[in-house]
């Protein structure tokens, strides 16, 4: 109903063409992308009737429609009335797939904004909408963020229809259901909830529907708008909603009984429930042999610990617990620290913040000058800072290993969590040493155990421990042996195989 207030009109179409035209033009504020084309339609009694066609430039391709309209000079002489003419035109002339009669301005605006062309004749209070929609969008490309060595190369696009088709192609089964809703009072963004009807956990699906229904927002431009509304707990650095731009990941998740939320206009699809271990799994884990995948997965967990703990451990050990270092290493570290003016914590902070700045810069800056930034970054942050005596060489190594380990995580948002935690732990390490670090770790573990994603404990299948799900948690055993779906997700059918 907001459309009416925005357009300042209401109700049904008028039979006077110029009144309708005036209302439409007023509603769009005479925007130049609204194209208005007048024509004359001839009736059998020899009179000609004023007619008009509207469409939005760039959203529709009305060439065929215009050709059919003007091919015979608009003369369909066997029609005696305006209604007859429209009906004849609709059933015999038009070649486009979807054609519909409209009676209200609301319908008209929706169709017009969806790329349809609207045809109206003087003396008729109904309009004809013709599906001349033409989508101008990025074609299907290889995903940029979640790339793999082996595996499908296609990624989602910004067009919802193409994305659902990609999913349909992966799961060629009528039990793959999409539920479509429109979110955003102004943007009217289409949001589709996808699930496999025979597998999805009903409780999770109800939760998704309920939470989506409660969203009150003017615009949805990316799936994160929805993510922030539907996530269980907002006060946590850990993501409780998974996002991916890979159709194969979504298909795999749907087969496990998860629910996907697809938003028109973004290639990133949300998956719920999202568990902690899911963020350490890459789709490639299933495209490489099980032994290799298991090792890589363990490596990712190790990298997560490195990314969160290395600087705090370094600070704690080098300022509180020097007795833990091998003697020769202590000489080395001590000689490097000679002449460094700051405490280890400040030193670490300088390097970490510098690195964060460099990373942020390299994400935002134009690609053409990326080279120069990386040169400045390596030279300034690496060698020069050490030579200038601002930081010790060991600290550069610590920060580098932390940074590299952070990029091992396949999920970017879990990497962000690691970054946030890292700074907190560094502060604890500087104040209390390893005692503080371990208190921090305990607090984080408690927090992780308190989290839930759509009713599923975040740390499952580790806490609560589910033996069967261990086949695909830390380890990834051979696919023929994964006979069951993850029990922690409560799928309708547990058995994967017969």
């Amino acid at each position: 109903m907001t459309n009416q207030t925005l357009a300042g009109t209401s109700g049904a179409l008028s039979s006077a063409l110029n009144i309708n035209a005036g209302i439409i033009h007023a509603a769009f504020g005479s925007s130049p992308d609204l194209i208005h084309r007048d024509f004359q339609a001839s009736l059998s009694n020899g009179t000609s009737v004023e007619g008009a066609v509207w469409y939005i430039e760039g959203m529709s391709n009305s060439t065929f429609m215009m050709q059919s309209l003007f091919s015979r000079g608009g003369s369909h002489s066997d029609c005696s009335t305006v209604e007859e003419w429209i009906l004849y035109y609709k059933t015999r002339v038009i070649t486009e797939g979807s054609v519909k009669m409209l009676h209200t301005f609301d319908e008209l605006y929706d169709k017009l904004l969806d790329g349809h062309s609207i045809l109206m004749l003087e003396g008729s209070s109904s309009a004809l909408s013709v599906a001349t929609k033409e989508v101008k969008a990025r074609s299907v490309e290889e995903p940029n963020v979640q790339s793999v060595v082996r595996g499908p190369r296609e990624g989602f696009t910004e067009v919802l229809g193409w994305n659902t088709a990609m999913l349909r192609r992966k799961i060629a089964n009528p039990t793959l259901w999409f539920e479509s809703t429109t979110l955003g009072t102004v943007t009217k963004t289409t949001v589709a909830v996808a699930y496999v009807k025979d597998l999805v956990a009903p409780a999770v699906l109800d939760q998704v529907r309920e939470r989506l229904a409660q969203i009150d927002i003017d615009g949805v431009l990316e799936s994160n708008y929805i993510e922030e509304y539907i996530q269980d707990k907002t006060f946590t650095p850990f993501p409780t909603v998974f996002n991916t731009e890979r159709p194969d990941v979504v298909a795999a998740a749907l087969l496990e009984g998860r629910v996907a939320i697809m938003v028109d206009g973004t290639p990133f699809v949300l998956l719920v429930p999202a568990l902690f271990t899911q963020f350490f799994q890459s789709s490639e884990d299933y495209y490489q042999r099980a032994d290799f995948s298991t090792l890589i997965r363990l490596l990712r967990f190790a990298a997560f610990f490195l990314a969160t703990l290395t600087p705090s451990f370094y600070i704690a050990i080098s300022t509180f617990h020097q007795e833990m270092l091998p003697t020769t290493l202590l000489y080395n570290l001590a000689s490097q620290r000679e002449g460094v003016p700051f405490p280890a914590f400040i030193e670490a902070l300088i390097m970490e913040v510098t690195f964060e700045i460099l990373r942020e810069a390299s994400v935002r800056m134009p690609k053409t000058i990326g080279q120069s930034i990386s040169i400045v970054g390596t030279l300034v942050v690496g060698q020069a800072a050490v030579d200038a005596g601002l930081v010790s060489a060991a600290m550069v190594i610590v920060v580098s290993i932390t940074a590299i380990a952070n990029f091992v995580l396949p999920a970017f948002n879990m990497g962000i969590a690691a970054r946030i935690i890292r700074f907190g732990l560094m502060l604890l390490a500087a104040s209390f040493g390893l005692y503080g670090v371990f208190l921090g770790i305990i607090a984080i573990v408690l927090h992780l155990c308190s989290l839930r994603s759509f009713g599923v404990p975040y740390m499952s299948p580790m806490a609560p421990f589910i033996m069967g799900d261990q086949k695909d948690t830390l380890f990834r055993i051979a696919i023929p042996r994964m006979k069951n779906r993850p029990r922690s997700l409560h799928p309708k059918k547990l058995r994967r195989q017969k």
Partner: protein
Amino acid sequence: MMRKPRISRLAPALLCLLLLLPLAGCWSRHELNDISIVVGMGIDKKNGRYQVSAQIVNPGQVTQKKNGGGSFSPVVTYQASGLTIPDALARMTVKAARDLYLSHLRILILGEEIARGGISKPLDFISRNRELRTDFFLIVAKNASASEILDMYSPIDPIPSNSLFTKLETSDNTWSATGKVTLDRLIQDLSKEGKGPALTTIELIGKPQAGEKISSAQNINPAVVLKYDGMAAFKYDRMAGWMDENDARVLNFIQNSTYMTTLTAPCPGSKGLVSYQVLRSKAKIRSLAPDEFEVVLHTQQDIADIGCRLDITDPSTLSALTKAADEKLEAMMNKTIRKLQKQLKVDVFGFGDALHRQNPKEWHKIKDWNREFETAKVKVKSVSTIRRIGTTIKSMEDEIKK
């Protein structure tokens, strides 16, 4: 479902938590460049006061690689005297540039006077201090003060204490004639009634003054050498006397701390010597009666060298070689045990301990074990096994005479 963060409620709690961090004041924090790493410590006694020397590493000089090495010495030794050891260490801070950090102590040298006067008093501080680990070696300086030993430059390893540490470790692993004693071992032995402690001895060969300059480390043939030489036997916490190399080896055999050693015995039936490499050894003390013991030493050996004509392919030769080794080992053990019974009059082997364990009733009747030990009968028995003969069959001597 929408859940708003309850920041209004969380904020005060978070603030309080954050305040904890600065309030803690980084207690006991010391940056790496605020500490002096003590690697060696010497304790002497002079005029009734403890004279403590601490060897401190200058890390920049130890690890400097690109600037061509510094002109400063890699270590500095400070000395201070005090009524007690902590007193002396506290007084040392007026000389040393930074806080003394004791966790990385590699070696603790006790002067002979301290050793003879009783080591329990200085050891109390050493075992009580929370910074000190227990993995450093304790040694006794022979014919020199502890500070003189610490003042010597060492070739190859720029840190003398480190050199002393590794020297002791390697020699103990391959020769087993020195014995390495760490703090926990020493305290254990000190608290035992039936086993006296024994500490490694270090000796200085050459003029002490010549070794104090860095130039002494530039000679190919060093003017002064620090050498481990046997052990010092202790009766309770007082040193009873020196044990020579042979005694130390026997002690290591009997208390099962031999890792690997070399044994030389005369050739069976002809002139010349045979060397054995002892790879495994296991000794057992059996108490037969309160004053009668039997030591059985099982060893496994390789033949390392044959210096005479021997047909080693003949099985009887091997048994003769085994017998020669047994005789040698038994002679060594007999000699040392007699020496400790008659001369030093202290049981460092743990015979009393064996009695305590195997016959506690009899043990509790004994008042002064060391006196009983003097007259105890000890039978020794060696059971050697020769495992390998090496990569040649005939000896070199044999080859040439053909």
